């Protein structure tokens, strides 16, 4: 039994950490934030050149053939760097495409993993409801093919995506539809997110023409593909939160050691020490939960679905708490715009709700344990 990263996995982490800190220091993240250009092409090509887009996918479709533990390693470093850009969105979309046996998947995936093509998933109809049951937006028949009219809300990185994978209904059945971002009738409206490094859009579809071949999956196949892709995306969101917690952990302990009040470092006071100890306990526990979920999902363990829900519920609760305590230990400077603390608190805050918050996840757990 080995509950730790292997040597190659540790090497991947070191590479990711070094690459991100060399190319994307927080000063640069702030520049992008200021001009709202978090989807700049140079940013994306650097990421794709590392092979990180779809690294968990088969070599045959352009991936690196690695597992979800490796994906978690990279996503954690993305969180620790507070990386802007469509990594989460594209990971989700690529995973969804890889679940679908269609010519479109085979056509698109190599260019997505190469970084030439960006994609995202348009899932939620209204109100931020993650329950697939409540997806109502309909494909309407139109000879030949279909028409799509309606609105998807809070779509990750829609504006920079070339492809929208839209989750809709074909009469009563769930369907996954390929829609080019530039198709006639598609328009994106930016929603200003609390986390300015994360781009969210409402997407309106007005009489968009859908060819029969662009309906990629219907019914049970669509349903299970979406569910599995959400599990992977949820895992990546947990990993991002974990990385942000890790940054707060390191930064806060260092501050407690160096900041002096009453002629002593504030870290010598037990009131501060206990905050730091709690940050440590929560961060390490989140690490155990997240990496276990990655391992369980990648090895088809019987409790994989539960493990993902547990990791997301736990990270959502303690990520926020680690952020709050990090701000508190820093005192006034931690509350300023100038300090980087708020970038990570906000990254965690938005991840808390993506793919279902702790309350939603606990209900998923309840369904599994109260059968």
């Amino acid at each position, binding site marked *: *039994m*080995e*509950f*730790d*990263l*292997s040597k*190659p*996995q540790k090497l991947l982490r070191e590479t990711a950490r070094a690459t991100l800190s060399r190319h994307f220091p927080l000063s640069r993240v702030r520049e992008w934030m200021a001009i709202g250009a978090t989807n700049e092409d140079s940013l994306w090509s650097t990421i794709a050149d590392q092979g990180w887009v779809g690294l*968990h*996918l*088969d070599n045959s479709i352009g*991936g690196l*053939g*690695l*597992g*979800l*533990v490796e994906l978690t390693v990279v996503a954690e470093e993305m969180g620790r760097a507070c990386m802007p850009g469509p990594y989460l969105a594209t990971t989700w979309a690529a*995973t969804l495409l*890889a*679940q679908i*046996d269609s010519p479109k998947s085979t056509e698109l995936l190599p260019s997505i993993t190469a970084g030439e093509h960006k994609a995202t998933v348009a899932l939620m109809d209204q109100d931020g409801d993650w329950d697939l049951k409540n997806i109502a937006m309909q494909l309407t028949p139109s000879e030949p093919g279909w028409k799509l009219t309606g609105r998807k809300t809070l779509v990750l990185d829609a504006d920079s995506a070339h492809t929208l994978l839209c989750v809709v209904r074909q009469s009563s059945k769930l369907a996954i539809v390929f829609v080019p971002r530039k198709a006639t009738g598609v328009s994106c409206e930016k929603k200003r997110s609390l986390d300015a490094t994360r781009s969210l859009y409402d997407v309106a579809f007005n009489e968009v023409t859908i060819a029969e071949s662009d309906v990629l999956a219907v019914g049970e196949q669509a349903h299970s593909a979406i569910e*599995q892709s959400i599990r992977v995306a949820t895992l990546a969101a947990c990993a991002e939160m974990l990385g942000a917690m890790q940054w707060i952990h390191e930064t806060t*302990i260092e501050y*407690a*050691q160096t900041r002096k009040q009453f002629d002593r*470092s504030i*870290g*010598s*006071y*037990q009131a*501060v*020490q*206990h905050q*730091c*100890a*709690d940050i*440590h*306990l929560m961060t*390490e*526990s989140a*690490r*155990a*939960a997240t990496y*276990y979920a990655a*391992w369980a999902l*990648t*090895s*088809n*363990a019987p409790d994989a679905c*539960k*493990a993902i829900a*547990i990791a997301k*519920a*736990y990270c959502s609760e303690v990520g926020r708490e680690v952020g709050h305590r990090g701000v508190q230990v820093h005192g006034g400077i931690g509350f300023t715009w100038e300090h980087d603390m708020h970038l990570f608190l906000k990254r965690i805050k938005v991840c808390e709700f993506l793919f279902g918050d702790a309350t939603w996840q*606990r*209900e998923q*757990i*309840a369904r599994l*344990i*109260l059968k």
Partner: protein
Amino acid sequence: MVLGGRYPSRQRPVGWTARSLMDLTLSAQELQFRNTVRGWLQANVPPPWTRPLRDSEAKREYFAYLRDWQRTLFDGGWAGISWPKEHGGRGVSIIEQSIFQEELALAQAPDRLGVIGEGLVGPTIIAVGTEAQKQRFLKPLLMGEHIWCQGFSEPDAGSDLAALGTKAVLDGDHYVVNGQKIWTSFGHVANWCLLVVRTDSAAPKHKGLTCLLVDMKSPGVVVRPLRMMTGDEESNELFFTDVCVPESNLLGQVNQGWGVAMTALDKERANLGTGLYLRYKRHLDSLLERAKTMRRAGRPITEDPIVRQKLAQSYLDLEVFRLNSLRTLSGMSHSNAPSPEGSILKLYWSEMNQRNAQLALEVLGLPGQSWDFDDGRWGYNYLRSRGNTIEAGTSEIQRNIIAQRVLGLPRSY
């Protein structure tokens, strides 16, 4: 099951392969070990003890029952399994030790009478004892003939253990001990005690301490049971008046007792893990079953969204404890040494168990707290859990250890 078997490699979802080297499955050798343990337990675990322990007669018989079980384990070669073979152990890995604890729990084997001896005193004697002490103490300990207790805390030396005042003065070839100890688990049944005493009052407090191995039948030793808020006589006070201890029972060096005591306590904290998880898992499983039988406001309580949230929270809290335990276990299997990281586990489980014991009462409501409901187990668990964040190092001390020994913040005292 805590430590997993190998999962059948089903058809993987399209799109990725599992090439993760992080691996939470057991090796073939470990699975073989599990089978061996399971087979032996099936043939040897006695029927569970069911009689209430109301009178001293019943308590005596229960003690004999537990001691017989220890002897059975010894005869089967299952006592002190993590000890080196040359000291009568089996030399198993920490993972195998954990498998053994799991199997004991799953087989509903009797409680272990010798936990302090086997987990704490024995390993410390192996680490710092003389050859004669090893010869004299280790085998009777494993056989269950010697039951050990631990004389550390005092009324005025709790978290600040090094402030203890029980004195030992060398007089010819023996020490004369005077003082008082408190919170001594197993004190009422133990025949031996690992005692920390002050041998040099002039030295700084950590540097004047010494460890002695004390025969509890020595004249001048008085044991008084302590009744806890649960009603149980779970712990004891020990009084020492002019107790003679032969110099040959000195454990380690004179005035080096602090280091010896810390060795022992690290082994205590490291001794957690999967057995504890399984105990709390049993509590939670029975709470889930209980909740399914109850109705409130005209519907099953398991349909109440708030109750569902609470039960799921309990479940996930416990699952994160399992994962933390597995991760610590994996780390220890490499270093083969307990580390201050054990403080995270202690802090986590003690506070988790308090949350979950409270939550069980919230779910069960007024009926559930009664001593007449499910043998009073929910009220008992709640009361007992209040001690969890105090025993074996308070949560405040655990946080100090994490801050100072793990995170490297300055000492605050």
